[in-house]
């Protein structure tokens, strides 16, 4: 039945095109010429920050763990207990020591246990801040690229109203084209492409009512990118 449906559609397409089955695999027209820009070089990092700020995101350089601690402390209002969800290493707990904050930790590649899985979504819905890392940045648009496999960041980067993302400056690429080339290469050395690759550019937004832009629709209302070098 299913095979028949497929055969029928393929036959209809061939009739429409006025030909039979292809005898050779078609050669694609060439892709856009590859642009070269050194990942992580100063100009690329600068462009990333400019573009990110343009879409309402924050970009901050952090050099030592103390900088991260301080940045997070400033994000947390005093006197109110906050829930922080994190998909990166257990060190986030240490960063928040002494803060009035509880941490939901979804560590690298590990399981949170069957019981915790069931209630994970509802716990994450209560989180005030989500902390993740990003696999890449794209300078020309100020875009973060989050790839599943190493980190459980899909919900952590989506549900809390504030998303804090750690990005290693050496992983900032110049263009979208470079990213797609890299992903393609990776996926063919390691099997299938990742289940999910998400590109995030600024906080979520909508312009559906009177074409007036409002930030923070279904996803985060704020996006803070902490740029570092081998900190996490």
């Amino acid at each position: 039945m299913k095979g028949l449906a497929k055969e029928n559609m393929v036959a209809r397409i061939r009739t429409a095109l006025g030909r039979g089955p292809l005898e050779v695999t078609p050669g694609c027209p060439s892709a856009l010429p590859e642009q070269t820009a050194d990942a992580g070089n100063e100009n690329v990092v600068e462009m990333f920050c400019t573009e990110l700020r343009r879409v309402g995101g924050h970009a901050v350089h952090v050099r030592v763990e103390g900088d991260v601690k301080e940045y997070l402390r400033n994000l947390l209002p005093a006197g109110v207990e906050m829930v922080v969800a994190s998909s990166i290493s257990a060190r986030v707990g240490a960063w928040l020591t002494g803060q009035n904050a509880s941490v939901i930790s979804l560590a690298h590649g590990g399981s949170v246990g069957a019981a915790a899985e069931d209630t994970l979504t509802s716990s994450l819905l209560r989180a005030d801040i989500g902390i993740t890392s990003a696999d890449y940045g794209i300078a020309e648009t100020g875009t973060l690229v989050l790839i599943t496999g190493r980190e459980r960041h899909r919900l952590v980067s989506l549900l809390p109203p504030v998303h804090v993302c750690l990005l290693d400056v050496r992983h900032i690429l110049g263009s979208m084209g470079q990213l797609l080339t890299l992903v393609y290469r990776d996926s063919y050395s390691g099997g299938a492409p990742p289940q999910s690759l998400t590109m995030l550019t600024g906080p979520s937004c909508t312009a559906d009512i009177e074409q007036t832009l409002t930030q923070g629709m279904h996803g985060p209302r704020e996006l803070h990118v902490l740029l570092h070098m081998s900190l996490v």
Partner: protein
Amino acid sequence: MSKATEKFIAIQTGVSAGGEEWQRLRKRAVMIKSHTLDNLDHYLEQFASNVEHSGGRVCWAHDAEEANRYICDLARTRGVRLAVKSKSMMSEEIDLNHALAMAGVEAVETDFGEFIAQLAGERPSHINMPIVHKSRADVADLFAAKLNVGRLEEIKDLASVARRLLRARFAAAEMGITGVNFAIAETGTIVLVENEGNIRFTTALPPVQVAVMGIEKVIPRLADLEVFLKLLPRSASGQKITAGVSLLTGIKRAPHEEGPREFHVIILDNGRTGILADPQLRESLHCIRCGACLNVCPVYRKIGGHAYGWVYPGPIGAVLTPILIGREKSADLPFASSLCGACRDVCPVKINLPEMLLHLRTQIKERPAAKVDPPARTGSHSPRTFGQLLANRAERAAFKLWAAVMKDARRYRRAARLARLAQLTLGGGKRRGVFSILLSRWTTSHIPPLAPQPFSSWWRELSDPDERRPER
């Protein structure tokens, strides 16, 4: 902390190489699309086999009925009571929500605009601005009446209500349904473009994921995606890139990973092989649903999206509707156009819409109007007479559609609001909105320069003539 939320997306000029870059991207996009269509059987089979290879299932559906039956059967066997949907023109085309309701499944639209349209019991009136016909006050009234939340004046408060309500739905839904912006043959990946985050919810939370796509959505390689990710947001909203882009491939790989347990792609013909067979209409399958042709169309702005009577409004709707639902059922649509060419000039994939409308006009047998002399049968009529005939027919067709809308006073007011916007922007002068900038491309054919100020601020200035007068 509130600083970021106060900021608008600063859309500004000078972010691209300008005209040449835009033309290069357009040319590349046309090349990829036409190459894909020439080899469509190959790329669809390749895409489908890669979907299956990554743990997904593929349904090849001939028409709406087959697609709806597959999705409803799936819902039934998986015990689905609630499905969350992100915006999908294809699901509108097949009236999936109705089919699901008949099968006892509640389908909730999660795009803010679509959610509002669904609450109002209306159809979207634009491809990517579904409630462009509604004012903020309309939405405030609607929420007060239907959601029991009091009357909220601020857009951010209205957005918060939807955010809160829909979060509960996302968490409860057993099925997530999306459309597909692009399908990558070499990897079996689907690509979804959004600003709100609702697509990320729809594809990350529910255990069963369903994606509905027309056969023309496939492109050969990941490397080909770049061109389209640059063209689509620019043409749709003047953004360099949307807030979210998701590339999704198959099912989750390990129990503790995030993502769906099941992934089903419905590859749907629904009349498209008929378009493929007609060389003069084939290019309409290049369409990436950006909505730019609607925004520049003087007829669309005059009569509004609902007047087109089916799913796709505007110039692209005037072409697709007669082909997809039957020329006899929408014989007026190809005539509801002044053939000014703005749609062709603005189209990121260079679809020659005016030529297609003419082609359809000749296919639909022209009935002469009472007051207009038909052109001489033996072909010696002057182009001018024939032109007049078409102009008249165009006027009558537009009026007919417009009259249908006018029966509903509220809708008329909204349509009039759009028309007023059109007049103001067409008037030129210093106050040029996004639309007038797009219109300037009639002659220059350059990249639409990104608006120096957020569209929203222009819109506020332009949409309320009581508060300001247009400069002359």
